[in-house]
């Protein structure tokens, strides 16, 4: 199965981002393809390397970056949503890139299933 992942919620406040991570990781481990992970709305905040959670907690950005590196995944942070929330190339962690909303449409066309987390 070819999946697209859409994340609408920010880190820590909601569990959506954690669920998206676990789903993406599990799908890849089962041999499915993940065409793109698209970060939209408050979801863009998952990309900032400026987050600094307590040491005994998960580091949400770093965890996404590590997964990206392991599977060479395509992470797109929506530019319009990012600009509103102070997210830009200077603050995004490794493996994330900023791109247009059209890249969400592309994945909706190409993926067998887009799985949305949040809203």
């Amino acid at each position, binding site marked *: 199965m070819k999946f697209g992942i859409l994340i609408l919620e920010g880190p820590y406040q909601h569990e959506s981002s954690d669920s998206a991570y676990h789903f993406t990781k599990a799908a890849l481990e089962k041999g499915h393809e993940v065409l793109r992970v698209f970060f*939209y*709305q408050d979801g863009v905040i998952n990309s900032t390397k400026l987050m600094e959670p307590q040491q005994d907690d998960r580091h949400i950005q770093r965890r996404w970056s590590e997964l990206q590196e392991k599977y060479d995944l395509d992470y797109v942070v929506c530019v319009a949503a990012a600009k509103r929330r102070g997210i830009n190339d200077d603050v995004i962690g490794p493996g994330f890139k900023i791109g247009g*909303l059209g890249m969400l449409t592309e994945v*909706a*066309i190409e993926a067998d299933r887009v799985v*949305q987390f949040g809203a």
Partner: protein
Amino acid sequence: MGEEEKAEKLMIVFRKAPYGSIYSFEGLENVLIMGAYDQDISILFIDDGVYAIKSDMDTEATGIKNFSPTFRALEAYDIEKLYIDRESLESRGLSVDDLVIKPKVIEADEVEKLMEEQKNFFMF
């Protein structure tokens, strides 16, 4: 447009009230971008999402832009498959005359059928 051979069926569902959060506004931004891709797009308003297209909204005191009239731009994007859930509309004391656009009023079983037909959909 939208009926071409390779067009995919994609749906955007508005189900949240327009001004208590940004889901609806950014959902509309997404629709306007999707409209440029010549796909077979349907839009559904359901639950509190019906308020997104309520006419005569006055948001001035909140400092938030009234974006409901922007839904009228959907026509210019050839997005003509617009639907609204009857129960959501009527249980809020509204009718299509109260809306900035005129979506087709459908029943819950038609909502289900429409969703099943889609390749993918987004909810805002």
